Each structure stands twice: as C-alpha cells, then as structure tokens.
C-alpha cells in the first residue's frame, strides 16, 4: 500500500479565502479509512474550519497517537507538519512541541482507545497543565484499528457486533476534561458538520486546553443495533445545549435580537463565540453547574452536544511557567549559553 496524493489542479471558479487558498489547499492525501467512517467527516470539518478562518496551514502542527482516528492527520492539512506518535502518548509529545514554539497552533487528534484507555493518564495531565491546543477525540466506543474490541468509552450494556454486552462503566472524557481543568470543552457528532465546524473554529481561537469529544461511529465494528455509538443511536439521543456561531474579531458584531437567550463570549484573540441557548439549565461559563448539567443528562441517557464549557480568559502552560514570549526554538547561542565568565564565577563558588 502506498500513499495517494490528490491532484493539485484548481478549478478556476473554486472559492478562495483571504489567503488565496482554496479548500483543496487544506486537504491532505486520500483517506484510506472505511467508506462512511465518521472520522472522515471530522477531517472534512477540520478542513472546512481552517479554510473559513483563513488559517495559514503551515502555522498549525497536527499530532496524533495510534488508531484509525490517529491516522487522519494525513488526510487533512497537507501543508502542515504532522507527527504520528505512539499509542496513547500524543499529549506529552504535543506538550513538548508546544513548549518549543508557542507561536504555532497545535492540534492533537486521538481516539477513544488512544485517550481513554492506554492514554488516560497523559490525556488528563496534558489538560491539567493548560497546554494551548485543540484536542479532538474521535470517539467510536471501540478500537477500530485492532478490529472492534470495546474501548473505555463504550457504555455499560452497549452491545458488540457479536452481541456481547459491555460489562464496564464508561469513561466520560468530557467530564474528565472538566475535572482536569480544561478551559474549553465541547462535544459534537461527526454527523453534524455545521456544529462541529463552529466548535473547531472556536477551539482554535481559544488560548488554553480546548477539548472536543466527537462521537464518530465506526461503520465496520460499532454501527449496529444495540450499540450506543451508532449513527442512529446518536442521532436519536443527541441533545444540543446551544448553537454556536464563531465570529472572528474583525467581523462586526451585531446587536442581539433576543438578548435573553443569546450570549456573546469574547476570547483572548478577540474572536467572539455567539451562543444561542437551547437548554434551559445550561450556563457554559460555570464549571460546577456544567458538570451537574452533564451528569443529569448522562443519567437520562442523553448525549449533550455543543460548547459545554468555556473560560474565555484562561492562561496556558507558557504563562504558568513564565516562559519568554518568543519561541524557545528560536533563541540564539548568546541567549542560551551564559559563557565562560559566568562559569568562572560558578567555579569560584565551588572551592
């Protein structure tokens, strides 16, 4: 099996964004996933989001673990550097990359096996540290790449393709992210492109750990009756908490028509998140109440989606560590090496 690149010929009428790039310029090589796999829709949403916000593709670095989901960074943003790391350990690699150059945007793509099973520790700790990133879990409740074993996000009682019920309690990554201190938490569904694109755009504009749990059915191993991660099941149980519209800073912000149900949240970079409330009992800026909200809906068997929590003026790892504003990988010899004079003094103190 060898890679397939897409032809780069542009149709003259293809729409271009402010950078003069077409949609094509944000694509990667042809996907080798199963036709209809939810993950491909997420790649499409990432492409759409980056195109819409005029992101220079080379200013984003994409990192992943291992799994079908973690293969997807090859299928979007072909002009970006990418890193397919080891199973469950993408968060630490992303943390290091982020420390090396704070000027890039970091996107971590992972699966539910990758993040909730083998990588649960790294997932939680990376979020705890406030690493400035967009962390997407393409959540299908199974290990796709190793052919359909349950992952740690599979619901208790959900049936495998062979009809066996999962005996264990599920790990809810959204709840875990909130507990670990994520400053932006959303959930979406690969089948709801509009919602997903807005969430990705908002997450990219967020400064801090932005986490998106995207339910992404596995056509091959987890899309049957009895599964709680099938297309049908998710569609039936999807409860959107709000409708998000992402407005870039330079866009004019118009007056709300219905101020009671719409809130504007301004992020660090000036972008505005316009949230139209759909659920009565949801306040996206109150962490504790959001945790309650999620537990209440989980108990009812509902899958709440939307921008669940946001802390607009969060501070990231660099801020916490007091790191220079310039990328560490760009510092010169003179800035890094204290020189022989300083060493002389150190020697003197050691006699």
């Amino acid at each position: 099996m060898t890679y397939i690149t897409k032809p780069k010929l542009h149709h003259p009428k293809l729409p271009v964004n402010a950078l003069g790039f077409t949609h094509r310029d944000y694509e990667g090589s042809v996907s080798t996933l199963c036709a209809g796999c939810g993950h491909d829709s997420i790649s499409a949403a990432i492409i759409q989001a980056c195109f819409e916000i005029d992101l220079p593709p080379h200013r984003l670095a994409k990192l992943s673990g291992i799994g079908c989901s973690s293969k997807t960074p090859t299928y979007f943003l072909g002009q970006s550097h990418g890193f397919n790391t080891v199973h469950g350990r993408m968060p630490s690699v992303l943390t290091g990359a982020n420390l090396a150059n704070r000027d890039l945007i970091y996107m971590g793509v992972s699966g539910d096996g990758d993040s909730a099973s083998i990588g649960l520790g790294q997932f939680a700790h990376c979020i705890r540290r406030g690493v400035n990133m967009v962390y997407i879990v393409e959540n299908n409740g199974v290990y796709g790449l190793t052919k359909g074993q349950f992952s740690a996000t599979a619901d208790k009682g959900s049936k495998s393709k062979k009809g066996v019920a999962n005996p264990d309690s599920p790990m809810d990554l959204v709840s875990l992210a909130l507990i670990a201190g994520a400053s932006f938490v959303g959930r979406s569904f690969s089948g709801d492109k509009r919602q997903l694109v807005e969430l990705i755009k908002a997450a990219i504009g967020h400064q801090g750990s932005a986490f998106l749990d995207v339910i992404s059915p596995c056509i091959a191993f987890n899309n049957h009756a009895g599964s709680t991660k099938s297309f049908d099941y998710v569609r039936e149980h999807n409860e959107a908490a709000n409708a998000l519209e992402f407005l870039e800073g330079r866009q004019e912000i118009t007056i709300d028509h219905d101020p009671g149900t719409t809130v504007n949240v301004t992020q660090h970079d000036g972008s505005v998140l316009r949230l139209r409330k759909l659920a009565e009992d949801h306040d996206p800026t109150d962490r504790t109440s959001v945790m309650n909200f999620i537990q209440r809906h989980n108990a009812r068997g509902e899958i709440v989606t939307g921008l669940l929590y946001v802390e607009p003026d969060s501070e990231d790892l660099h801020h916490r560590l007091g790191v220079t504003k310039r990328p560490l990988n760009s510092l010169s010899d003179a800035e890094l090496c204290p020189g022989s004079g300083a060493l002389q003094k150190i020697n003197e103190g050691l006699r």
Partner: protein
Amino acid sequence: MLSRVEKINDFVVRLANVNGSGSASANRIFARSIIRMGVPVGSRNIFPSNIQGLPTWYEVRVSGAGHLGRRGGYDMMVAMNPQTWDKDVAGIDAGGYLFYDSTKPMPSSKFREDITVIGMPLTEICNKQYSDPRQRQLFKNIMYVGALDALLGIETDVTEVLIKELYKGKDKLIAPNIEALHIGRDYAEKNLKGAVGLKVKRASAVGDRILIEGNAAAALGCVYGGATVAAWYPITPSTSVAEAFASYCKKLRVGEDGNNYAIVQAEDELAAIGVVIGAGWNGARAFTATSGPGISLMQEFIGLAYFAEIPAVLIDVQRGGPSTGMPTRTQQSDLLSAAFASHGDTRHVLLFPADPKEAFEMSSLALDLADRLQTPIFVMTDLDIGMNEWLVEPLQWDDNKKMDRGKVMTHADLEAGKDFGRYLDVDGDGIPFRTYPGTHPTKGAYFTRGTSRDRYARYTEEGPVYVDNMERLLKKFETAKSLVPGPIRQDAPKTTKYGVIYFGSSTAAMDEAILTLNEKNILLDRLRIRAYPFNDTVIDFIKHHDRVYVVEQNRDAQLKTLLLDTGKVDPQKLISVLHYDGNPVTARFIVNDISLKSGLETSLKESV
C-alpha cells in the same frame, strides 16, 4: 606489640552515622577542611533509601598523590552508629584506629587487639553542655569534627572558616558551632594527644580544583549546551539533575520578557520522554534525567525517536536494579538496556563520563550530537559520579563554540529550491535534512512517522523501502563513531601484551590500581572508553593485545558484550573484572582481581 598505621596525607577515614542525624554537613566540613589544607580528598556517601533512622557511611579518601577513587579498606573508623558497630570495627585495616563515643562502657569483646581504640565521651560532654535534645545531637557531630581536627592535625582555623561559610545568612548558628568545634578539639588536645598516626600535612596539591556533584555538573552542561526544555520524573539518583537545572536556569537563563527555558515535572517517565521528543521534533534542545527504571518505561518512545530521527538527550544516572532494589547504590548496569533500548532493530549512542567535569562536558556535547545525528543520546553517569562531590579541574567553556544545530533546512533553503527529502541521504553520511514545523507556507512540510515511508516521507509499506531506510540508519550509526569522544590510551612503562579497558566512574579507582599493578610487575596498557559506538581504535587495541581485562560495575559484563558485538575479536582474550555490590569499585578490588586472574596471589584488604 601493637603496630600502628603511620601515614601522612594518604589514608582512608570512614564515618558511620545514623541517617537523618545531621551528620552530613559536619562530615562535609571535615572533608573540606582537608581540601582547604591543599590535600586532595575523594569523599563518598553510602546511604540507604530512607529519610531517617537507617545507617549511613561517609568515606573520606585522603590522598596527597591525588587518588580520588575508593582505595578499599579504611584506616580509621569514626563509629557513631551502635547498630553497625560490629561490622564497622571488623572492617578497620590492621594497625588502624577506632574513634568512638565512650560515654557508655563497652565490653572488651567489642574491640579488637590489633587496632588503636580512642574513646571520647561525646554524649556526656554534650549532655552537660546542652539541654535541648536536638542540640545535643547536632553539636555532637561538629564536636567530633573538632576532635578529628586535633587528632589528624587539621588546622582549626580552616574548619572555622568553613563553618562561617556554611552558615552565612543564618549567622546566629556560627558561634555555637564554633564553640562546639572547640570543645571537641580541646578535649582531644588534652586527653588524646598523639593517639593517631594518621596526619594531614599542609600541601599544595589541590590547585584551583573545584568540588562539584556530577548531577549539578550535568545540569550545568545542559544549560551551557542550550537545552531549553527539560522534562523529568523524580527518581533517585537522578532527581538532583533536574533540580540543579532549575536553579541554574533561575540564575542564568531569565531573559527580559520571561524564562528562556521550560521545565515540566511530568506525571511519569513516559510523559517525560514524550515531552523531550516533542520539543526535539519542533527544534528545541531538550533533555530528561532518569535512572534505570525510568529508561525501562521510556523504551517505546526511545524507539520512535530512533526511527523518526528526533534529537533527544537522556541523562541516565545509573543505580542498582530493579525498581525496588538498590536505589541509593551505584552500578554501571544499564549499558545494554540503553544501547539497544526499544523494540525492533535499534542502536543508540552512549557517552561515558568519568567524573563531574566530564558529565558537564558530555551533557553539552550530547545536545550537539543529538541535533547533529537526529537521534537519542544517552549520557551514562551513575550514582557515584552524580551524587558525590568530586574534586575536579575547574569547568571550562570556549566562548567561540557555537551550538551545532545539525542539518536543518531553512525558509531560505526551501525558497532557493533545494530538494527536501526528510529521509534522503544527501551527504553520504546517513544523516538527512529536517525542517522545523512552520518554516515555509508551501514547502518543507512532512508527516513524521516511525517507518512506513519513503525518502520523501511519503507513506509506503514496501519492503525494499523499509530496508533502504534501515541501512541508512546503520550508516548514520557508523558516522556517529567519528563524532563521539574517542578512547583515551595510556601505555605501560614497558612494552606489554596485556591491556585493560574501563570506563566511567571506575576510572578513579583504575588510575590508582594501575600503579600498584605496575609495582607488582603486572604491566598493562590502558584504554578508557568514552562512548559507544566504539571508535575503531578500541577494537584495534584489543587486537593488538593478547589479553585485555575489562573492568565494569555490573554482573553480566555488559561492556564486554558490546565490545564482542562490535568487533570480531576472540572472546577468550577479554577477561572480565566485575564489581557490582552497589558500592563504587575500589583500587584494591581491581588489583586483587587482576592479580588473581594473572596467576598472582595477593590479599589487599577489601571491604564494602
């Protein structure tokens, strides 16, 4: 008649204490006083993995001739720990001295006939002097230092200056400590005069040497080598590398708008190495410090860095295995697990510093090598080097030296239309060019994965392409041979067919052992190995000798295994000299073992 060891500037004092009793700083003052008198000292802590209550020893090798390794045996025991009394007394060289707290009477069976016993009622004196129990304990320590000053002829003024330096900033502690010192000294002057035949005599053999722990030196090497990202997880004996890096950075690396460094205390060693690899991938110099158990946990990632060709520096402060084993004891036993770390066909570059000065130099060199070779580089120190203060030549830095960032294609290179293949061997040395993420809007981006890609980083699972890449990696490893520090050879005074190979912290003991071996007419050419892969001269050395001893501090002859794997040499030629009880190897051990294996009998007293 009792014969007494009579020696000037050439003896070993061992102090037996209880962990957590405050003896450490008093013992350090004792050793430093001798150094301040111009006499070289090698001092070592032998301590348990415990915070309070268990036995610890501090060994002070006084050597005007400059032997800083362990000699083996000791001439004087300062027995402050009743728990270990029997063993401590038994270990004294015949004719040696026992200094003890004579407050409580001891049955004569507890002593030996062939040593000189010197009792001083330390507890009694302290109890009379102080009412607070903690003071009684602490001042007892400095009091025996005062007595030792008198017994060994150490100038009290020198010790006083050290006390003042130590308590600078906590000035009210100075006077009472000096008072306790004087009480000890005065008692010994009055009651114990001439009791000890060991003497410190002012000399000028120290020069401008400094005292530094290997871990601090390695950390400083990382500062000088330009490391900006450090990630670590606490583990003895490596913890103080990260701690020292943090404190040096606070002094030396704070820029106008913030820190020119970032340190992450990771959740485990897997995350620590992951952070290092991420930073290395993105063009920052990064390192981790750990010990054997951490290296075990990092295995999968180390393989990724090898295959994906990402710079990373690992400082492995080796200790005895396994995790629940001997965390506070030294060994050189991670050679194989580091050299071949991970799954699949892997090989890694190892550097072997012999002392803190080399730990400094090699840590900064490792950062250059990692960038140049785009691969993990291991700095293999150990507890003996890392956690003991060594007397070494002052650290030096050449201000003309520039960091070697290796083969990195820039925006300008890409603009100029240079052909960029991430895994393309353009120079014939096996080392490809890389680009940092974010370099150019349309050129130079690539997707990093372990294998399954061609020379241009395009996905493929073709067998021949895999093989092509693996062969290039081997070529790169060949290139490494000429970039790493070569071995250091010193020949015997006369032509000989015998040789000895050694490395790392065995060096100090070896330097002393070789003199004794010479005296016994066992003539050996010496080769100190400083890196793996081995320079060709290492294999030549073996080929040109009939028999080569290989001295190492592990059970399984790990260096020998690497030598046999590298060179097609006759295994019969290599005779192992293995010391692995967790304590640093001694000169006497080396002499005894080599003598025995050369067919000569000797019995120099060994002790742990």
